[in-house]
């Protein structure tokens, strides 16, 4: 069996094992180096992509914080197929808008979308991030294909009654597409549900925020005025 092209040591099991192990080692090192070199650049790109997407739904004048760094994940919210990611947009320390990202079940698969609304609950923008709906029929939810998605702008829980938050076929306010009702219906329901979740979350945020601000402001204020704590206690006693 031993020839010039395949010497006898190559017939041994140890050679095969060594060859495989050697190649795997080499390849792992290459992948490790490649990953180390590219990881940071790629995450910067992804961050920039997210920032761009945020700019699409939320006007830059509405916030001066980095909402993407303050994301809170809410599990098990009805109406969504993925955990809801929600983040506050702050302007001068005050909550100015809320951003929400999640998915709803469409015709093909999950439709991932991002939505933002100002503190009065008016939608500032909705964008579909990814979907697998039928091309040509139901891809009008993309801004590239149609301006349908912009018709949510300015609407809120107050501007339309719950029954109006539906496609026209179901007696609502929003157009369906010719030959495709399920996709727009899913989107309208998703946006409506998102508004409810955002309003509820905003309530919680506002309810929890004033005390936090007081705590921050108290140390300088509490030193000169010692009577203040008793006044607060008094109020608390009266309220219930």
């Amino acid at each position, binding site marked *: 069996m031993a020839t010039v092209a395949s010497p006898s040591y190559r017939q041994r099991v140890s*050679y095969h094992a060594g060859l495989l192990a050697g*190649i795997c080692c080499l390849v792992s090192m290459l*992948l490790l180096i*490649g990953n180390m*070199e*590219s990881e940071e*650049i*790629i995450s910067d*790109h992804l961050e920039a992509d997210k920032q761009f997407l945020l700019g699409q739904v939320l006007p830059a004048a509405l916030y001066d914080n980095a909402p993407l760094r303050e994301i809170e994940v809410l599990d098990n919210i009805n109406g969504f197929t993925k955990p809801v990611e929600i983040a506050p947009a702050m302007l001068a320390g005050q909550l100015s808008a809320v951003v929400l990202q999640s998915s709803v079940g469409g015709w093909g698969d999950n439709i991932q979308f991002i939505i933002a609304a100002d503190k009065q609950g008016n939608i500032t923008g909705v964008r579909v991030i990814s979907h697998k709906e039928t*091309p040509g029929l139901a891809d009008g939810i993309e801004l590239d294909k149609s301006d349908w998605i912009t018709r949510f702008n300015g609407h809120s829980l107050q501007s339309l009654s719950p029954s109006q938050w539906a496609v026209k076929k179901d007696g609502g306010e929003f157009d369906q597409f010719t030959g495709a009702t399920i996709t727009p219906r899913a989107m309208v329901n998703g946006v409506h549900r998102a508004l409810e979740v955002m309003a509820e979350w905003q309530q919680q945020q506002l309810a929890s925020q004033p005390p936090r601000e007081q705590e921050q402001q108290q140390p300088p204020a509490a030193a000169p005025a010692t009577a203040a704590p008793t006044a607060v206690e008094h109020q608390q006693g009266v309220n219930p």
Partner: protein
Amino acid sequence: MSQSYRQIFGDGLWNNNVAMGQMLALCPLLAVTTTATNGLGMGLASMVVLLLTNVIISSIRGIITPQVRIPVLIVLIATVVTLVDMAINALLHPLYKVLGLFIALIVTNCAILGRAESFAAKNGVRLAAADALAMGLGFTWVLIVIGGMREILGSGTLFSHASLLLGDSFAWLEITVIPNYSGILLSVLPPGAFIALGLLIAFKRVVDRRLKSGNTEQLVVPTL
């Protein structure tokens, strides 16, 4: 095992074309060819990977033994695809947003393993590189033709969004063939891909038969 470059390119582009002769790589072919631009992107990405894997495998063919060649080839191909994926993502991010899906799909492209196993492992580096170019170009043109057929029938455009892939200087490629065209939905859906591929293969068979009856010496026998 010496083959002329002429023969290699003839095989790659027509006789033993990846998609029409070897009938390999049909999964990515059917999946991504909804537009000519997608086909072009997938074809180019496959060609780059094929070139790298063929050259690497051909240059280490001396130390690979037949018993362990398949795992070695698969590990190498997967590595090259992953590295190319990371490199494009880091360096050419706008391109990655268009091509990202396809690059990962290349790992599942059995044509790459097929060429590594049947050609690169048996031939020198230069021949292997030529084979990769020929096979890559052959695969690319089939992808563009099928993508173009489906795009024209399905949405009345050709090479739409090509400037996203190739840069703004290629915006002239984007042609609206039929303005205000509602489109045949079937052509964009998966069955349209099967129909287009079937028509193309039938076309190749007819041409080959004509050639054969005209010149009996030029027998066309597809081999892997």
